[in-house]
């Protein structure tokens, strides 16, 4: 799937359009609301609390690069957090064992998604839509629709209580994952193969790339990252509820696509993703801190997505030939 039209050399303007817009936003809110907004605390909490969204968005860009959609990540996040809560709180498993079980679930779900997709030759969108619905049912079932709290303090400590430079460790885990993913995508042949498969499936196949394996791997990667996001979710909130994770799916998609307009325009890339997440979060937080009506935040979200992507396309040399 080619995300944006055109190709070729990237203009600097476009690469830095989004970081620039982010800066402008910060300056704007800084002027409007200097005492509250321009404090270290604001940025510390902003960075710390949105680590879950960032990791979930990273999960999405792996299969997106390989040309597949994963709509089940929200459900995997929810189930992962719920499994940790149930195993740790109700069954008394040690926290590391509960985390391992959740990650194993992520891996398994990704594997099933991938196998169904490749073996039956069904579009990833349908497979993961079905799988996400199925997992939602399972989560309701195992949790009995209830919120479960009281997850081990070790996890909570290591996710959100411990800080570095005033920012919760969760942020650094997320940034670490960004860096790892960036390295994999740019500097390993496994990562390049993801891109090849995403852009030319037959070509890759005839070049000796095991296309099916790469696609299954991408879905396993996304599910596992979503399970990691679930671990962070359980850690930041100390508990789990059966539905709210799925609400993160659309914001994550928005951030993934917005991120693909920046740093390496036209490609889903981890740093662009991180900037997109924090650009959107900054806008929302600034509005929240000013006590602005909630619907304005939603207007900002939608509007920012449209305007940012549109501008980044304008700043791009227009290329006459549309790619099919």
């Amino acid at each position, binding site marked *: 799937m*080619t995300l944006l039209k055109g*190709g*070729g*050399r990237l203009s600097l303007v476009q690469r830095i359009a989004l970081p620039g817009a982010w800066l402008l936003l910060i300056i704007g809110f800084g002027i409007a609301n200097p005492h509250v907004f321009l404090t270290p605390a604001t940025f510390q909490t902003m960075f710390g609390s949105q680590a879950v969204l960032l990791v979930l968005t990273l999960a999405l860009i792996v299969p997106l690069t390989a040309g597949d959609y994963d709509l089940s990540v929200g459900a995997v996040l929810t189930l992962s957090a719920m499994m940790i809560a149930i195993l740790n709180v109700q069954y008394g498993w040690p926290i590391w064992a509960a985390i391992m079980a959740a990650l194993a679930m992520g891996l398994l779900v990704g594997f099933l998604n991938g196998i169904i997709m490749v073996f039956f030759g069904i579009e990833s969108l349908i497979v993961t839509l079905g799988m996400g619905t199925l997992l939602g049912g399972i989560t309701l079932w195992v949790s009995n629709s209830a919120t479960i709290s009281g997850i081990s303090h070790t996890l909570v400590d290591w996710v959100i209580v411990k800080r570095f430079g005033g920012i919760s460790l969760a942020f650094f885990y997320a940034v670490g994952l960004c860096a790892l993913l960036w*390295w994999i995508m*740019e*500097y*390993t*042949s496994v990562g*390049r193969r993801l*891109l*090849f498969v995403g*852009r*030319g499936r*037959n*070509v*890759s*196949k*005839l*070049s*000796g*790339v*095991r296309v099916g394996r790469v696609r299954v791997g991408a879905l396993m990667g996304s599910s596992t990252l979503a399970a990691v996001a679930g671990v962070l979710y359980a850690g930041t909130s100390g508990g789990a509820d059966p539905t709210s994770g799925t609400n993160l799916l659309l914001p994550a998609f928005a951030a993934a696509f917005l991120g693909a307009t920046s740093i390496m325009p036209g490609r889903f890339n981890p740093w662009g993703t991180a900037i997109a997440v924090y650009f959107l979060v900054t806008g929302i937080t600034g509005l929240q801190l000013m006590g602005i009506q909630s619907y304005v935040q939603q207007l900002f979200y939608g509007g920012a997505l449209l305007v940012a992507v549109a501008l980044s396309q304008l700043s791009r*040399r227009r*290329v*006459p*030939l549309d*790619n099919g």
Partner: protein
Amino acid sequence: MSAVLQINNLAKTFGGVKALQGVDLTVNAGEIHGLLGQNGSGKSTLIKVLAGFHEPDAGGRLLVNGNEVRLPLAPGDYKALGMRFVHQDLGLISSLSVLENLFLDEISTGHSAGIRWRSWRRIANELFRKYKVELDPSAAVSTLRPVERALLAIVRAVSGAPRNGLLVLDEPTVFLPQDDTEMLFDLTRNVAAGGAGVLFVSHDLEEVKRLTNRFTVFRDGRVVGNGATEQTSREELVKLIVGHELKAVSHRSAAQIAATKPIAVIDGLKGGLVAEASFAVHEGEILGVTGLSGSGFEDLPYILFGAAKAETGTLALNGSVVRLRGQNPTSAFRSGMALVPADRPRDGAILSLSVLDNVSMQTMDQFQKGPILRRSRMREEAKKVLSAFQVRPNDPTLPCSSLSGGNQQKVLMAKWLQTRPSLLMVHEPTQGVDVGAREEIFSVLRSATAEGMAVLCASSDHEQLALICDRVLVFRQGRIVAELTGTHVNKEEISEQSYAVDQDAQPAEAS
């Protein structure tokens, strides 16, 4: 004689690339006009301007049947102006049915409410009968063989071409075997005789000489010459197109081949359209496989590479034996095989990625140092390789889609030859490649075989096979019916063997 099409001072710039500059071209009524030029010289671009696909730069003029037409043309305008096209990539939608593709133009520009599929199907069947092609209107184009697709595109264009209109054929013959080419030529002459003009693009000068009345040659987007075909020799044409003269090539003899050791031994292969094939490819030789389309030779490279399924058979490559049923592209690549497929945009190149990405798909791992992929090194290396193959422009960061078809083909050759395979398989390696580049590709293949590589070349272009192959296997009905070596490797004998009506497969004369 009146001009059907008159173009003055037409220009087209893509970003910084001047694909066309100051082009003047006239096609007269009843004339078959050859449009010649190297890869990337702008032929298809001109055609796409006429189709309303590209918007030309300001300043050009276009006259159709003497009437000035305002540029740029909008998509679909061509229809009212009486133009019909067979585009270079045929212009078919492969996931749709033959019927839908046949009426693509009608539907694309029409305002019909209440399409009468049944009567359209009747019309389609009549057309196919009239033009003697066997096509099922409800078959999906993706299930057709390349020849059938080409025929569909040709029937569509020819049947719609009006009197005093213009028929544009952009390399229509690359997919066609000899007899279909003949049929196309007859059709084209009929159309011209009816009063229409024909613009015919081909890299095959033989065809150009036989079919066209006049010609125009492009080089780097400019017109460098035109004239009457009869009064121009083949050599003169080549010189106009390439800018210099071509060298002759020599073949190895049967004895020379026998003296080398076999690199790949294929035994009892069955699968696809291949009924039975056993043969060997020797060190340092270029082995051609050919036949009529449907005779099975096109399937051979794909089966050997594991991209199409084999039923039985083994392949011994450098002594190690694999069962072909279990073959897949990855293991084939790892065991030292390479395949340059014929369908470039689908199977060959990833057009949306850079030339660098395409060339380095397989060699990437060599640039991995510890955890880091050294990309500047990759770029330098790619630049070197591209200049060795004379890819123009030589800029590895360009997206592959902005190269012309021929240059894309050179990139693909570069990509695979870099991996130093012991068996290189090519399918129509010079498809859409101009005479100059064709020569370059041949010489690259030659120098690679000089280092011991074996080449299997599947092609229906008999002249090409004659030019580059040391030995040629001819297929009929899924079996090898002839093996030609030495002086027998010439266009006439290859054609004769391919078309021989003799049904009893006779093991060949020269073996």
